[in-house]
């Protein structure tokens, strides 16, 4: 059961703590700076924060006994002389970290191993707690990588990294857009997964092509890793074979569109989503902020409203801004309009921590 939340926002990292009187902001770090993502490594208690300084680039900071220290940021290798590679807009693709979009700890038996997904599509691995990073060349050099396209941003990016708790050499990542990719040899080789997903935003001949899928978020159940949930650009999909095949779930009230998904750590049939009007608007349906939950693998959904604004709410919840703790009882999410809510009863009810933060990019139990 976690009593601490890290809320990464456009203007700083806010630490929210549960005290006797409830959840409150206890600390602010990097005030004024764009903090895009955090990771708490459960193996050693270290915290990591990704910052985007705009003019000055993307940086990574790691917690120390007294504060934070800047460590290496993932850096792309030199682009070979004469190599012409354009992005989907026809502009030269700059081999340079444009955003850190995923941070994940390695397996229990490999302390210090971290994974980092970036825009424009590079995956990086560290074996020394982030002191240095090495690009996973097998994925970057995969010929199909050049078919990845922008989705959530102008450039393609890796936003989800799922390290299999049974075997840390098995890792699944998700790309917007580029579908799901899977390795069983710690990143030495990769195969595309994700049969069964369906994309509405591409011509018919590509609709079912796994590489054309705009996965918004991929979540794997720690206790049952064969179970994966996907919040996709045009739907909700569930897999019972570690992402080889997916089944579409169409009857999700009030909408199948959204960005995040989380799964209960021990019950693979229980998952949560934050739905919105689909892509042309991207706001809560009828101005009512809700969380949907299934407890039966997607056969049915409950809509949770208790404690959430039900009038003129235009909160958008980004893909890293919904989280669940290790107990499976506590959830939290933050919104683009600066709201943060916590539930201690698996989403039956929610308490507002604040509604005045800068835009929230990521919420993680620390």
């Amino acid at each position, binding site marked *: 059961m976690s009593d601490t939340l890290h809320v990464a926002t456009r203007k700083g990292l806010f630490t929210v703590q549960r005290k006797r009187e409830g959840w409150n902001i206890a600390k602010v770090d990097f005030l004024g700076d764009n903090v895009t993502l955090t990771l708490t490594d459960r193996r050693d208690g270290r915290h990591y924060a990704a910052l985007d*300084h*705009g*003019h*000055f*680039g993307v*940086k990574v900071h790691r917690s120390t006994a007294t504060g934070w220290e*800047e460590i290496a*940021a993932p*850096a*792309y290798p*030199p*682009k070979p002389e004469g190599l012409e590679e354009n992005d989907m807009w026809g502009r030269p693709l*700059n*081999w*340079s*970290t444009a955003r850190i979009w995923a941070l994940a700890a390695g397996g229990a038996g490999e302390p210090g191993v971290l994974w980092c997904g970036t825009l424009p599509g590079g995956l990086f691995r560290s074996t020394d707690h982030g002191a240095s990073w090495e690009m996973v060349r097998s994925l970057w050099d995969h010929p199909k990588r050049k078919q990845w396209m922008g989705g959530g941003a102008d450039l393609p990016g890796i936003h989800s990294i799922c390290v299999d708790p049974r075997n840390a050499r098995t890792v699944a990542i998700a790309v917007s857009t580029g579908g799901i990719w899977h390795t069983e040899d710690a990143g030495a080789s990769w195969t595309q997964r994700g049969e069964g997903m369906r994309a509405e935003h591409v011509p018919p001949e590509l609709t079912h092509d796994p590489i054309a899928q705009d996965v918004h978020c991929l979540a794997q159940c720690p206790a049952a890793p064969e179970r994966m949930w996907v919040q996709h650009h045009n739907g909700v999909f569930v897999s019972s074979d570690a992402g080889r095949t997916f089944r579409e779930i169409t009857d999700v009230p009030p909408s199948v569109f959204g960005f995040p998904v989380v799964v209960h750590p021990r019950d693979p049939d229980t998952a949560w989503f934050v739905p919105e009007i689909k892509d042309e608007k991207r706001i809560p349906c009828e101005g009512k902020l809700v969380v949907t939950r299934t407890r039966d693998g997607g056969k049915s959904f409950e809509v949770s409203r208790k404690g959430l604004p039900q009038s003129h709410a235009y909160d958008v919840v980004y893909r890293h801004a919904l989280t669940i703790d290790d107990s499976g009882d506590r959830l939290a999410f933050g919104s683009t309009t600066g709201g943060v809510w916590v539930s201690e009863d698996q989403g039956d009810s929610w308490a507002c921590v604040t509604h005045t933060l800068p835009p929230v990019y990521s919420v993680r139990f620390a």
Partner: protein
Amino acid sequence: MAKVFFTENIQRHVACPETEAAGRTVREVLEGAFAANPQARGYVLDDQAALRRHMTIFIDGRTIRDRAGLSDAVNETSSIYVFQALSGG
């Protein structure tokens, strides 16, 4: 040696005091400055060692032309200003 000045805004993240470095191009001068201050390099240059997109460099009052190669000429008495471009917002 050329004098190098860094925008005040960078100082909040990494100390970049005024410095001097030798070189015939802005690349050579900057690499000389960064040799003594390696953390600052990634704040000014991107992964391909090109000038970051929303940064700009003035040599004696002129903005540089070669943002990727940094081959613009520098002389012994040049003043080099590493600034943010307003385009970055």
